[in-house]
């Protein structure tokens, strides 16, 4: 997958954008009744990730996880259905968009910032116990790296020599607190030195550069130990849908979303003698049609039966309040 064609790459970027836009329609229509975090503007990183992650690698992600799920090969229909709170969702509607689990694909997310890293450590240790070179990927944001779990996980992964790749999507904002006010170090890549592991910062809007950086990190992790990639990007939407986003300078936001859109940048790059613009149009239309069809289909699905709301608390079926009116 490392030699992905540019047409596949571009189509996947567009598909990811359309997927997130489909999720936005769910907020507007109230088919998604809780909060929603999208990664619009961060597609290049997820596409780059998809080019290096193997079926037997694990991936743990965050509250902003839809594109990582796509990169891991989670089927789109149960993924979108879970986000839309449907019985047909990958977790039957019990998890919702922040809590996605696919055991066979070694994929999970958590809604707690920083909490995915220790879970990735467990996957990495499992690979070691099996004598496998399968890598544990953890994709986190720049907010999570200031939590204790980041430090504990990086230190333990390094001291145990585990195959862990931490991809930090540095979108410069931890809700309303800017990166400049939250990090003692100018970059997050340089924190790798503290754990005696390689770390590099890369332009996360540039899919080729990001793919190359992740490739280097993965090669290191499969044989030697953990590595960090800090991919710079910009969160196009508010932290969540409904966030008024008044903490960011609106002029800068407009400028960056218009001139630094990874899809626009990729199209401009490809149009310059790499791919025929007609083909680019066709790829965009194809991706859009796929998502349109998917969304229309998912919207027809039912929500889970309310009579099942007490199921699954315990794997054994234990129900401590069975028979007690509540």
């Amino acid at each position, binding site marked *: 997958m490392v030699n992905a064609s540019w047409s596949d790459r571009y189509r996947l970027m567009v598909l990811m954008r359309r997927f997130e836009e489909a999720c936005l329609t769910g907020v507007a229509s109230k088919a998604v009744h809780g909060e929603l975090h999208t990664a619009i503007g961060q597609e290049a990183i997820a596409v780059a990730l998809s080019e290096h992650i193997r079926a037997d690698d*694990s991936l*743990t992600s965050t509250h902003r996880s839809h594109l990582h799920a796509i990169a891991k090969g989670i089927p789109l229909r149960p993924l979108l259905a879970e986000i839309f709170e449907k019985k047909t*969702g990958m*977790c*039957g*509607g*019990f*998890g919702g968009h922040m*809590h996605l*689990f*696919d*055991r066979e694909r*070694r994929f*999970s997310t*958590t809604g*707690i910032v920083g*909490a995915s*890293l*220790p*879970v*990735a*450590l*467990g*996957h*990495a*240790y*499992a690979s*070691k*116990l099996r004598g496998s070179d399968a890598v*544990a990927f953890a994709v986190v944001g720049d907010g999570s790296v200031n939590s*204790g*779990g980041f430090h*504990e*996980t990086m*230190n*333990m992964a390094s*001291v145990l020599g585990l195959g862990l790749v931490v991809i930090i999507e540095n979108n410069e904002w931890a809700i309303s607190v800017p990166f400049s006010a939250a990090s003692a170090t100018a970059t997050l890549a340089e924190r790798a030195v503290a754990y005696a592991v390689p770390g590099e910062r890369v332009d996360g809007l540039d899919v080729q550069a990001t793919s190359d950086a992740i490739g280097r990190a993965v090669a290191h992790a499969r044989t030697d130990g953990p590595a960090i990639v800090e991919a710079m990007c910009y969160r196009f939407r508010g932290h969540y849908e409904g966030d008024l986003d008044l903490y960011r300078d609106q002029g800068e936001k407009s400028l960056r979303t218009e001139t630094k859109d990874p899809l626009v940048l990729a199209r401009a790059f490809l149009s310059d003698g790499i791919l025929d613009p007609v083909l680019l149009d066709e790829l965009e239309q194809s991706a859009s049609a796929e998502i349109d069809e998917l969304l229309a289909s998912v919207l027809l699905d039912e929500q889970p039966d309310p009579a099942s709301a007490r*199921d*699954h*608390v*315990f*794997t*054994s079926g*234990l129900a*401590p309040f069975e028979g*007690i009116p509540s």
Partner: protein
Amino acid sequence: MTITEIAPRNINISQAVAEGLRLEMEADEKVLVIGEDVATQGGVFGSTRGLLKAFGPQRVLDTPISEMAFTGMAVGLAMDGYRPVIEIMFVDFIGVCLEQVYNAIAKIPYMSGGRVDMPVVIKTAGGNIGSAAQHSQTLWGLFAHLPGLRVVAPSNPYDSKGMMAAAVRSNDPVVFIEHKGLLLKRASDFTFGASVPKEAYDVPLGSAAIVRPGSDLTIATLSGSVRHAVAAAEVAAGQGIDVEVIDLRSIVPLDWNTVCESVGRTRSLLVVDEDYLGFGLSGELITGVIERLGMGAMDYVGRHGNPGVPVPAALSLEQAIVPDAESILAAIMRAGAAR
């Protein structure tokens, strides 16, 4: 009959726990033990002693002081088919890693719609041992409040080995709370559950045990308080009150059948709980009995435990807060006077 056959092994509770772990690790190579000082040291109370030698440093892993990391590690390992036993040395330390316990281990079976189980044992030592406010809590009420966790606390050597075996075999996550005041006590120190077979066995989680039958008052208690309650009951018997002592053994789930059957006979319930009284086991137990037996089922209800006070350092203060045989006897006498 030879002498070896009639003499019970005089092992301590830590040894019983370690033996239970060893037998389960022999039976299932997916069982791992992870925590601080669990390997080379064999646990600060010796309850993982011998495991490193038997199973090597990959399955018995000494960690840095990084509870958040290694507790979360158990989540990833469980997703990958392992059955990790993680040791939080003192239950008081749960504050630094509760996130992974209550948001991940406890909830993932539910959040995944039943698709991902979490066969994790959170092995930890609780209870008073003269170590003051930050090293003496029991906290089973805290864990029991959170959905998705089985919570157990054995009181004797036989149960300690058998309940650890059951915890390891459980597909539900189990918080296994040892009592620091019991871990180094030997079988000969116990009048109940003193005989520990060498072979593997399990004690099903969720069943209480009647340690001392009686007809006048039901005491429901657990862990380190059971032996104190039995001692107090013997004294009370001499003063005309025949106390039944129930060792709950499991907090989640509670064995309502055993408790309700007993209360149905004695019509009197005293809950003795080393944990904080407020919003905890005692209130839950009394409410649950009323829900099941009705408002008229009891002539006396009482509770005796820590009245919401951090455990103090000085022995004189500690004795004023933590239940012991003397204070339990006083509670029995209050119950007797009230009936």
